[in-house]
């Protein structure tokens, strides 16, 4: 092994080393983002073009009034999320966020089941009076537009 690089070479070697690391990091990141980023859907999109069952996605919409049912075990909930065009049954096991209720907006993180229902691992509801998840803000606008379009 050579004892030490010549000054010019040492700087060059360091730069090349750093660039290679950045390149590897970049390629890895790009590859992982394509495969691991979870996409945001509204129910009509999922119904039209369901994502693969093992893929984590986010589902946003309104909780349909009258659809919320708690299973006998007391912790499993079934409800329907709709966006004006399509709707999707959702199952959730856990403690619902405090502001989660029928007729309000919700974002569910989870994946599709083979039977066509959505299994939610986590629910994001309105966090407090001022804070609305970004998806939900747009969602309700979309919602409003569709509602207007339907009543015309």
């Amino acid at each position, binding site marked *: 092994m050579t004892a030490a690089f010549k000054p010019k070479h040492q700087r060059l070697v360091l730069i090349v080393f750093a660039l290679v690391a950045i390149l590897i990091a970049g390629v890895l*990141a790009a590859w992982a983002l394509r495969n691991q980023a979870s996409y945001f859907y509204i129910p009509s999109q999922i119904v039209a073009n369901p994502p693969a069952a093992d893929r984590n996605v986010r589902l946003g919409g309104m909780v349909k009034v009258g659809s919320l049912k708690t299973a006998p075990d007391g912790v499993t909930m079934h409800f329907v999320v709709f966006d004006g065009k399509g709707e999707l049954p959702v199952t959730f096991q856990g*403690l619902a966020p405090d502001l989660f209720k029928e007729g309000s907006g919700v974002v569910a993180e989870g994946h599709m089941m083979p039977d066509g229902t959505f299994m939610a691992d986590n629910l994001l509801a309105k966090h407090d009076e001022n804070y609305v998840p970004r998806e939900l803000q747009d969602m309700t606008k979309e919602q409003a537009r569709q509602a207007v379009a339907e009543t015309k």
Partner: protein
Amino acid sequence: MIAELGLCALWLAAALAALQLVAAWLGQRAGGETLARIVRPAALVQALLCGLAFLMLLWVFARTDLSVKLVVENSGSDAPMIYKIAGAWGNHEGSMLLWITIMAVAGGLIALIEHRLPEKTMLATLGAQAFVGLGFYAFLLFASNPFARVIAPPADGDGLNPALQDIGLAMHPPTLYCGYVGLSIAFSFAVGALLTRQVTPDFARVMRPWILGAWIFLTLGITAGSYWSYYELGWGGWWFWDPVENASLMPWLAATALFHSASVLASRDALRTWTIMLGVIAFSMSMIGTFLVRSGILTSVHAFAVDPTRGTFILALLAINIGGALALFAARAGTIAEGERFAPLSREGALVINNVTLSAVLGIVLVGTLYPLLTEAFGLRVSVGPPYFNPVSMVFVTPMLIVLAIGPLLRWRRDSFARVRTPALLAAAAAVIALLAVWLVAGIALLPLLGLTLAAGVAVSAFMPLRGRSLRRLPLATCGMAISHFGIAVALFGMAVDTAFTVEKLTAAGVGDTVAVGPWEVRLTSVEPVAGPNWTALAGRLSASYRGGAAHELVPQSRTFWAPPQTTAESALLTRWNGQLYTVLGEQTQDGRWQLRLWWKPFVTFIWLGGVLIGLGGLLALIGRVAVDVRRRKAARRSATRKAEIAR
């Protein structure tokens, strides 16, 4: 009156920053010596004025002065005093005032105590500090005035967000800000050194305590923030890869790389341009973090501030500061002479790998954090979470930790494997034993298995540099390094064990029912209403016993605040040496049972214990470095006076 006094002090401080910038600039020229003399006093007075403004803000919050808009929006008369005061920085305007106050105080401190660098470099540094400061003053004064009044004071304020009414969170922002803003000093030193082309070991020695100090605050801030979100949010997780968490992790990664490379520059006069570059990047990450949090562009449970004009303002500040510094770097980097040489297998070589892997992890976190914003511009909404961050960052964390085990054993300049074979083999043996033991006892996923293996290797190797050395003559900095590195192993152990062996139980239980979770038997004794100063709650009384032992009581609550109206779940935790029982009370079901969520989390506390150890190691290193500095300065002064005597 108090509010106006605060605003007045803030304007004066901004004016002094402008004066400081101009004087530092003109003072560089021939004949500017008189002007140059006012730079240091200007920095000092600016710090005092900023401190005064911040005190005034604390005062109006302590007295709940409802004619001040910020108080109305973020405080209420019935909150406990500690949360009234914490309300001062638990909001956008107040936290930006805190930011600029810390920045001014840090600038004042270097003006007061730092006399080792050439005066021109110090002038350029203080000028750069004033330049960055001016941007934030403008932001405060024009876009987020904390002292704005309301025309008609209401009867009471809106109250502080209940999620923020917690002692951990009250102290969280000041701690993190000390870290964020401490890095501004490193940034200014880097710019000052570039402007005057004085990149020397002295520069690194002057910069190092500031980086270390900022880094300690960041470490403790991140640790505390992680523990806070763990018990407050009631999800039982300790790291969510939430953009706001990433915003504090990125400056930490950069600062970690920076003080490792600064130590190369200080000891060996190598990695000059690299250190300067990291100095620029570290504070850039602080500013990007602030932008992400404060502009409200993120989908995040933390994004309390939503205001696009402010976002644009901070973005412009970012572009000017980072763009300017990088342009200066590009122009000057080529003129900085190459530092000392070293062989690939040497302490320097190991630290280069440390730097490169840390930077790669930083890049991965940055890309993952910004990716959702990028795709949204193209109309595609995605979120990026643990399935991306965990495996991809592990690809670089693994070699980093292997080098962390070996690197501190190597000599500067050049070394051979043969010399470090024994300690390296010992560490490797520990890792392999851990791997086999865990593998045979329990089949667990790849990442936690890798984590446990690395934790064992790092834990053993952390103390190897102390081998065969007299503990009494050991430099404090070396001792600090060993403790910090050991802390990394401890935290990693906690993370891996929690990920692999947590037991969760979600159920609905009637009063009197017993639920088993891991080694625990938990009985729901009763559920009763309780009242606090600004909330009412339903409290579940749980009686828990570990492997049939004595019963401990836990009282998780479901709290309803009335200002602002909101319900939060207050978890209750029971800590043993080998883990925590985590309990959350949910809603009542239709048939009268109560939802309960229970976790047994073995060794989860090691995560934060490790974080504290890492910070403690940093503190020891800081004390050691400063003590050596002080001794060196005294010796220099003594020899100077002796020389003067001999000359006479």
